[in-house]
């Protein structure tokens, strides 16, 4: 048996002490994990974590000077007998009728007052609370001062309510003493439903083989070894395993000593919660298993997205219309004044789309931007946007563990319904560069007027000459340039220059229109890409950053030091 004691000592002392501040840091990290992943992860995966955060807060706020120890086990294993033997009083009714104990009983060593709140929280009815006042006893009870011993109902009888009660209480206590007996120590329900769930709570688990008085003394080591083997299979290697018999005070001395050490250490509550954090972290690790990527949506998907959005927004059409409108307006401004008016009869391509081509005035920026008449997107264009958004989500979600890719996709889509309106507003609000007439239009326009006026002056001069001649008056001597009279030169030269300017300016306008179209396209593309960033990429990046934060938080929660 000495090796058992040795192992028990290892289990209780080998572990270094748990610092309350470290535990709080870990619990806060779990809370942070829950906050950041709220809405992204399915609730049912987070239930244990939520329970832990809430429960740990309550437990740590209550008396840390008390250690709550529960006696748990199958029906008929002698929990109540052991409870009474430890208390040296008949507190919990013992019987042969199964199941005997239906509600939890508690015994407090020391004054009850300090433990009342803790017992209220645990949920032991006042009439099932007992006090073990050491003043009346010998000194040997003082070592257990601060112990709250619970006698739990069974968990394997036909009474299902008992099992529910045990499941509830096992989540609240600091240390569990599992009581098994030679008949039931290999029951499936004990190992699979209970002991196995406590494999991360090895330092707050004690297993007791009770009723050893019913075994032939020679068989005891074999049974203990078999039980130890089963415990190892359960992942509870190294937990203290004691043999007891409730009928004999001497046979529970070892258990009493273990409890005394636990109570003196004041560590059980912290160890229990620390084990809970380990369990929760282990359950959550696979949810943030993969390394976060660069946290970026790659350039290629962005470009595809911008192009698809541009098509939907009608960017090529608007850019084309801008080019046309430039040509139209430039021709209007620089054309031969005589035929300029004809232009007015043709519609302005940009106005037809309900666009001005100018930047919205400053004071109007707050006001409503009127919808454009840019043609509706086609089914193909919509498909292209759908594909592009999907591609962004897929790239960003690649390699993330299970629920995250879906969350990324949902985020990418979250504002897809607002996209058409946003794109329309963007197109309407983009400065297409046609707001101000270029200086050279005015210069050329002025030149056109000048040459036209020159021609007109020549014409008037000639007309005046004819008039004088018709009236028989001597015409004034027209100055000549070479052989050509000046008025004729003015008239013909003016007309010729006007046509010449118009012809010469035409390729310039075409070139400038092309440039204006390209500039408009560039601006529209940039604006539309901005919409894509805001409506698709940003929500995706938010999810990715939440993932990274959750991962960091969980790593922090996993760090035991």
């Amino acid at each position, binding site marked *: 048996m000495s090796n058992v004691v040795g192992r028990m000592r290892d289990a209780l002392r080998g572990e270094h002490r748990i610092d309350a501040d470290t535990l709080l840091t870990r619990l806060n990290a779990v809370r942070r994990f829950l906050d950041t992943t709220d809405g992204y992860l399915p609730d049912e995966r987070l239930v244990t974590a939520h329970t832990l955060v809430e429960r740990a807060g309550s437990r740590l706020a209550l008396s840390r000077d008390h250690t709550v120890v529960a006696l748990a086990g*199958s*029906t*008929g*294993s002698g929990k109540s007998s052991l409870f009474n033997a430890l208390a040296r009083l008949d507190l919990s009714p013992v*019987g*042969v*009728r*199964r*199941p005997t104990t239906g509600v939890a009983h508690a015994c407090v060593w020391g004054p009850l007052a300090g433990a009342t709140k803790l017992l209220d929280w645990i949920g032991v009815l006042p009439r099932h609370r007992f006090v073990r006042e050491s003043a009346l006893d010998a000194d040997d009870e003082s070592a257990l001062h601060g112990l709250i011993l619970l006698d739990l109902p069974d968990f*394997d*009888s*036909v*009474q*299902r309510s008992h099992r529910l009660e045990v499941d509830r209480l096992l989540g609240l206590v600091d240390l569990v003493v599992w009581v098994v*007996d*030679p*008949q*039931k*120590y*290999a*029951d*499936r*329900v004990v*190992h*699979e439903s209970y002991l196995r769930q406590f494999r991360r709570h090895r330092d707050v688990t004690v297993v007791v083989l009770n009723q050893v008085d019913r*075994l*032939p003394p020679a*068989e005891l080591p*074999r*049974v203990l070894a*078999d039980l130890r083997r*089963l415990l190892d*299979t359960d992942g509870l290697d190294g937990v203290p395993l004691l043999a007891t018999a409730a009928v004999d005070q001497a046979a529970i001395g070892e258990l009493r000593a273990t409890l005394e050490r636990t109570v003196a250490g004041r560590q059980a509550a912290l160890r229990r919660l620390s084990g809970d954090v380990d369990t929760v972290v282990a359950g959550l690790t696979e949810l943030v298993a993969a390394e976060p990527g660069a946290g970026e949506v790659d350039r290629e998907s962005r470009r595809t997205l911008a192009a698809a959005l541009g*098509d939907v927004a009608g960017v*090529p*059409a608007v850019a084309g219309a801008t080019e046309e409108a430039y040509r139209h307006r430039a021709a209007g401004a620089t054309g031969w004044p005589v035929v300029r008016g004809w232009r007015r009869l043709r519609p302005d391509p940009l106005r*037809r789309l309900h666009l001005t081509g100018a930047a919205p005035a400053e004071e109007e920026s707050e006001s409503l931007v009127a919808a454009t008449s840019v*043609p*509706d997107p*086609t*089914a*193909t*264009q*919509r*498909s*292209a946007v*759908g*594909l592009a958004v*999907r591609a962004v989500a*897929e790239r960003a979600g690649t390699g993330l563990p299970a629920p995250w890719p879906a969350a990324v996709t949902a985020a990418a889509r979250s504002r897809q319904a607002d996209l058409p309106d946003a794109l329309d507003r963007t197109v309407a609000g983009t400065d297409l560069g046609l707001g101000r007439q270029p200086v050279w239009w005015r210069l050329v326009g002025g030149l056109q007027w000048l040459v036209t006026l020159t021609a007109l002056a020549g014409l008037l001069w000639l007309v005046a000459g004819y008039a004088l001649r018709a009236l028989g008056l001597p015409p004034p001597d027209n100055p000549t340039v070479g052989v050509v009279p000046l008025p004729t030169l003015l008239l013909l030269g003016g007309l010729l220059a006007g046509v010449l300017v118009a012809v010469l300016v035409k390729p310039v306008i075409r070139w400038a229109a092309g440039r204006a179209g390209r500039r408009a396209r560039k601006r529209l593309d940039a604006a539309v890409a901005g919409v894509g960033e805001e409506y698709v990429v940003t929500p995706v990046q938010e999810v990715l950053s939440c993932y990274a934060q959750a991962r960091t938080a969980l790593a922090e929660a996993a760090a035991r030091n």
Partner: protein
Amino acid sequence: MPAAIVKSDLSHPDATLPTPAGGEANGHRGRQLFGLPDSGTLYPVTTHGDDASAPGAPPVVPGNHPPVPNPGRTATTPGKGQPAELPAALTGLRAAVGAARFPLALPSAEPARRDAAGLTAQLDDYLLPRLARLDAPLLVVVGGSTGAGKSTLVNSLVQARVSAAGVLRPTTRSPVLVCNPADSSWFRSGDLLPGLTRTGEPSEDPRTLQLVAAPALRPGLAFLDAPDIDSVVDANRALAGQLLAAADLWLFVTTAARYADAVPWELLRTARARGTVTALVLDRVPTGAADEITAHLGEMLTANGLGTAPLFVLPETVVDGQGMLPEWTVAPLRDWFGQLAADAGARDAVVRQTLDGALAALQPAVAGLAAAADEQVTAAEALDERVRAAYRNAHRTVEQGLRDGRLLRGEVLARWQEYVGTGELFRTLEARIGRLRDRVLAAVSGRPAPAAELRTAIESQLVTLLRGVAAEAAEHAHTGWRAHPAGAALLTPELTRPSAELTERAERLVRDWQRGVLELVRIEGGDKRFVARTAAYAVNATGLAVMIAVFASTAFIPTGLEVATGAGTTVAAQAVLQAVFGDQAVRTLATRARADLLDRVTALLDGEAARYLERLAEVEATTGTPEALREAGARVEGARTRARLTTAAVEGVDP
């Protein structure tokens, strides 16, 4: 010190079972304890059912007499009219159950699979062999919790160490069958429990059955020491269940510490539902606790409909050097079995009652399987519909995309304008020379001729549309399945997106369609003179015009907006075509070309949907399962009623 308490009257309310000697109904009701207070070595306790369930309740005999089987109340042989009907019906059921599959991961599927396996095993292990040999020895299966003392009890009953007992749990891992040497040939033959290998040696392998001949045991009765039902060793539990299903009589052993455990009670209820004749042993009762525990257990038995099962109470004692219980504790139990063994009629009655109960229990079990199979079919239909709805939507989107002519805008339109604008259409329609010039032009400018570009544009537009709708449909189908428990289990990650070769297939589709359109024009215009005049190349251009017309067939009268954005040029296409072919021919051509395209799209989307639907193929193969099961179940039930295995069925109420 109380020695043993026997609660007599075997098992089932309507059983024709061993009853105490001189069995006359004496009208006792309720539970009575007849004690021999001081000398008391035996406390016979009798529980009676109510009048309805226990006609002719057996009398309680004070004193030292264990219940004696009553030869006068044995059953007649099964109806001679249909000797082969029942086995044939059972074989049919065996085939139906064996063929039943529950591939969808519905909540009911796992229990149904287990039930089907259990049913198959019961048919093979017990029902078919037992029906073939009604006079074979009675098999008593000793079952119960680990540590209840089953092996010790069997050893003590046969007065030989046949099964190892011990303190380590679970002790027994492979079953041990003890019978009289005269009966061993039947058990060795392997008709019963054919899945277990017979062996003469103790074994740890759960797939073996150790046969032990014990001369102390009377012929006609055999004990089977089964493994436990509730230890950590999973194989034990499965094997115990299988053995219980093969029992003619189940001797259920529990202890004072265990009698309220939840697991054994589930099995007891199963046995009750199955009609198995059951007797109970309450073992390891501490001194002085017998009365209280027996009373409590009796209440629990009555509450669970097992109030008439015989109950034997054994005290906690120390085993002797041989590992046997003291003789006085097991004597009542041994006597009881001795009388059962001695009385062929009583044995026969037990066999028939358990057999009849097991056969009667088949009907609800089969009905449960049929219901689960129904659920499979319904779920498969629901999943099927979700996928089809998703792809129907996709198809509708494509159809609308084609119908409202909007595909024409954008790139297709630009190319078309380019095409019409260059006047190439007319030129290619007119003469072959255009072809040469196109070639030269393309070679010089390094650009493909406009006709080729136009086709590319249509191609890319259509392919984008198809890719888009297929991606959306895949996602909808995936979402629909994920929301369904059975669907979620069938999903694999690649099902979230369309198949990898979709783009390639969509491109092929468009190219094939374009070729089809050209072929259509060739055929349609075959008798037109101009085709003779022009050449294949002209067909090319005409085909293009038809394709445009397909996308714009509503644009015979272009809307204002379409004129504004240039869709009016399709009017030009129409005009050209109509001039060449005539109005009606153009409509026909366009309609046929569109129908052709939609057919191809349907085929493509069906191919995509098949990736989901093929996962349901396994379920679709089981569409007939519920009917087959119900039919086979009804046949067994009919044959059972006609076979009249028990006296209750023959005689009705016992006078």
